[in-house]
């Protein structure tokens, strides 16, 4: 209980004193219990007054401070600072707002404004008497970060963090890094290939001694909280000894071993366009080491007989690491159309955008007559000239399009048009007909749209109430649509190839969301706390999102998010300790009868269960609690208090105001 409180009533020039009789206020409070002095000042915030307060606090041995002046929004921190400089705890300072909520709001009724000011100051004094000295709790933190996913997002974040001295564990489920970007070929706007970009990042990653890269690696479990996460990793062996690759003649022997491998699987790097063996060479991907696909390997041993260095029998390994923060960069999967969706899987010349990308990249399908210096594009043995592009497959599923993906996948319009232009540039005689639902080449990407239409690409459009239809008759694939741009008349195109412009869905992540306890949104992607206030933060303190794990993005946008996640993680943990808000829920251990309601109410997962004197009670995870107080009203036993807003403080204020 504070007994020597100093009260300062500010005139604010005349802004307060014109309407509030400050002398009357002083009279009313100067003799209250606990008040050691009460003064009137012309400008409480003036430097000289601040000095005077400090002097008073020291000389009069004050233990609490009340300033009745403007809104705390303006000067709470000024006077907390005064308190601190004078040697009393800053939380023993309380500000009474008698300007914005006093003299100004009630300038029409000065007498009542004075009355309100008196009560407000009394309430502030009452609160100060019960105020607790608080210090911000500090927890230690590990200056290490786990980054899940070594695509462009994960590698970017890893490099940022490592460059600023933080240790990074960069893991990827796959045996090769680069993620979706490495599959993408030439990219707008610079024309670099995705593989070039990811290889460059990979080289930087390998050079950086602060980064530990683990491929074939996933998260098994997570314990602990911000600053101190305990993570268990599972590492699937690559099946190749690193040293072996350096040996003479390895490349030839590997080639033979791949030939000898009897297992054919669809090559997901080419989105199923080609097949590969269970023993996969890197094929230009990083690291440039082959890997054994454990899921499909039959352990026949044929390869190992030919190529020493292949170890198909090595065991899975586990590794426990301690990190201060986690960045989730698990990326996206392209939407997989269901069988029969726009002819997919039923009509043979229907492919997805991603497959088409690989088709024009691989070059393996280039053949045929050639027209001048350019080759023709061949798919399934047929020359491709007219390509029908069907947009929004797996996105914006509203109206006649059935499905759960209501969102727009953002990147596909620009990407499809860029790809169509590439096809036009690289192959002879290509004609592109785009069946759109309104082209969404936002920002500078509008220039791709302009370029492609200038080149002669044709755009048709339907609204939600209709969609293009496909038919396959007599060896000809026909796409039809009622075209909004031509007075809703039905248009048809005979297409050599149909490309379904498929959007993004969250990448399957084997329950990572549950392990990390981070929520997903309606669209299935991981959700940030708030798109503007906390755009890369998750509800779990210390766990951040980077890249398309959060939602559809293009590469530049992905990089922006990755940089942001990295610097947020860095500023959170690099100091070695984390300062927390002192306002926090506190459990009265004697009163608590664990019912779990507080756990349910807490938006931050900051309530744990613990044993106390033979009973189960709630415990507040101080590193996660944000002091919102949502657990307070749900507690049947009134066993929770919020520091700074305890029952005592609030009730004393209510009483003072009601008096």
């Amino acid at each position, binding site marked *: 209980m504070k007994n020597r409180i100093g009260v300062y009533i500010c005139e604010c020039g005349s802004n307060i004193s014109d309407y509030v009789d400050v002398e009357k206020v002083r009279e009313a409070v100067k003799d209250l219990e606990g008040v050691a002095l009460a003064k009137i000042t012309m400008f409480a915030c003036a430097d000289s007054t601040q000095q005077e307060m400090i002097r008073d606090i020291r000389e009069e041995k004050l233990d609490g401070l009340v300033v009745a002046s403007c809104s705390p929004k303006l000067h709470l921190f000024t006077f907390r600072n005064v308190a601190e400089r004078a040697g009393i705890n800053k939380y023993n300072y309380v500000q009474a707002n008698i300007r914005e909520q006093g003299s100004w709001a009630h300038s029409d009724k000065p007498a009542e404004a004075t009355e309100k000011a008196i009560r407000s100051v009394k309430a502030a004094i009452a609160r100060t008497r019960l105020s607790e000295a608080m210090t911000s709790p500090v927890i230690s933190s590990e200056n290490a970060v786990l980054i899940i996913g070594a695509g462009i997002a994960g590698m970017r974040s890893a490099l940022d963090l490592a460059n600023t001295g933080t240790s990074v564990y960069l893991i990827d489920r796959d045996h090769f890094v680069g993620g979706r970007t490495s599959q993408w070929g030439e990219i707008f706007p610079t024309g670099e290939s995705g593989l070039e970009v990811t290889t460059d990042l990979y080289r930087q990653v390998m050079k950086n001694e602060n980064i530990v890269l683990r491929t074939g690696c996933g998260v098994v479990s997570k314990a602990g909280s911000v600053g101190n996460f305990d993570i268990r990793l599972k590492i699937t062996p690559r099946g190749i000894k690193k040293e072996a690759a350096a040996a003479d003649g390895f490349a030839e022997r590997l080639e033979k071993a791949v030939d000898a491998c009897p297992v054919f699987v669809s090559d997901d790097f080419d989105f199923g366009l080609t097949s590969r063996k269970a023993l996969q060479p890197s094929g230009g991907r990083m690291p440039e080491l082959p890997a054994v696909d454990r899921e499909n390997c039959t352990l026949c041993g044929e390869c190992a007989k030919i190529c020493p260095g292949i170890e198909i029998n090595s065991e899975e390994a586990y590794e426990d690491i301690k990190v201060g923060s986690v960045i989730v960069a698990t990326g996206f999967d392209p939407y997989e159309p269901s069988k029969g969706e726009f002819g997919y899987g039923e009509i043979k010349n229907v492919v997805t955008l991603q497959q088409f990308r690989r088709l024009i990249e691989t070059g393996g399908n280039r053949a045929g007559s050639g027209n001048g210096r350019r080759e023709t594009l061949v798919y399934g043995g047929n020359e491709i000239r007219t390509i029908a592009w069907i947009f929004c497959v797996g996105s914006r599923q509203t109206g006649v399009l059935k499905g759960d993906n209501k969102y727009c996948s953002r990147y596909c319009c620009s990407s499809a048009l860029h790809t169509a232009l590439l096809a036009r540039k690289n192959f002879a005689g290509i004609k592109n*007909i785009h069946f759109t639902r309104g082209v969404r080449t936002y920002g500078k990407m509008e220039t791709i749209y302009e370029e492609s239409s200038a080149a002669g690409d044709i*755009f048709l459009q339907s609204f939600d109430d209709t969609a293009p239809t496909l038919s396959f008759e007599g060896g000809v694939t026909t796409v039809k649509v009622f075209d909004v741009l031509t*007075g809703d008349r039905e248009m048809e195109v005979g297409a050599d190839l149909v490309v379904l412009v498929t959007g993004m869905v969250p990448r399957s992540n084997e329950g990572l969301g549950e392990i990390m306890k981070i929520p997903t949104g309606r669209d299935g992607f991981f959700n940030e706390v708030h798109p503007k206030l906390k755009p890369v933060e998750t509800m779990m303190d210390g766990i951040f999102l980077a890249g398309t794990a959060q939602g559809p993005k293009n590469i530049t946008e992905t990089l922006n998010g990755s940089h942001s996640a990295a610097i947020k993680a860095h500023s959170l943990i690099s100091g070695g300790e984390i300062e927390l808000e002192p306002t926090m829920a506190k459990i009265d251990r004697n009163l608590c009868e664990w019912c779990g309601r507080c756990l349910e109410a807490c938006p931050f997962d900051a309530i744990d269960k613990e044993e106390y004197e033979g009973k189960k009670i709630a415990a507040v995870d101080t590193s996660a609690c944000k002091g919102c107080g949502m657990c307070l009203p749900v507690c049947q036993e009134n066993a929770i208090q919020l520091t700074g807003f305890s029952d005592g403080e609030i009730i004393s204020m209510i009483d003072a105001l009601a008096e």
Partner: protein
Amino acid sequence: MVRIRPEFSDQIKKFGGVDFNVCYNCGNCTAVCPLSENDNTFPRRLLRYTVLGMEEDIQSSSDPWLCYYCGDCSETCPRQANPGEIMMALRRYLTASYDWTGLSKKFYTSKAWGIGSLLLISVIVAMLFAFFLPFSADPAGMINEDGGVMINSFVRGIEGERFVRIIETGDLVMAAIISFFLISNIFNMYLKIVIRNRKKVRVPVSLYVREAWNLFYHFGTQMRFSKCEGRSYWVLHWLLMSGYTLMFTVIVVFLPWFQTEKIHPFYHPQRFIGYYATFGILLAIIVWSVGRLRRSGEIHKYSHKTDWVFLIMLFLTTLTGILLHLFRINGMVHATYYTYVVHLAILVPMLLVEVPFSKWSHLAYRPLAIYFTNLVNKAADSGKNGN
């Protein structure tokens, strides 16, 4: 059902379409066009037909003729797709598509054909004079009492009145040829715009009569053009059109009255008409040539080669006409006669090529298109009201 034919737009590029593929179908052009109305919305729809290769829809449309190319659409087009120029190109394309001989298309799309045909006719005209109407060697006595050259008396052995009759006959033959082609082309146009539409609309005969006044009204006034912003264009166009038509009528139908030996006083209608037409035509030529050279304003940004041929031919005709007049009133006998032949050698091919097959044909197509459009629209309206 419409089958998309992307290659069609390449064809229209030859008729002068520029950059129209960049159109993103915002409809701005149609909305700013003061002539675009409910039943006939353009230019976007026509541009769209072009991009998609909807040839039949284009051929049965009268819309390109309803456009007077004020340039507002192109000027305000956010994608700079030159919608106005596509209407121009489509007018050329339609002129070619009405022409059953196929010559028009050749003139428009081939430089060799375009210039070759003009040269050929020019040479034929010159040859005709050389063989059948050779010059009299003696300039004496060719000056009349006014001191001017006797224009009709320079052919050896043929006196003035007969000469005029011969030239008049030639004129009428030429007019017949022009009319034959033009009228048959117009019939073709009628088939495409009115008859093909029959599936949808049947036009009652009475309507043809009731709407006929429109034909003359629009031909005479070009009133639609004046709805476009910038009235000066309309004035200019009207001056040219009226001057040209006057001249054409006077020369073809009233030659004996126009081409007299006597030089009338300045205020005589014969001379007055000549001066008026010369002024109108010359002014238009100068303004448009300067415009095209400077590429000022939307309508002059792009010039098809036939635009230049047209302007040059018209200019040469006018120039030789003026010279002829000057030489004549100043009594310069030889100069007058040579210039007379040169004048005809330019005028005749211009009329033969331009009137039925090229630019000048719009003089007929435009008012007819309005007429046909009114027929179809009114028939459709009464059909709707009747039902």
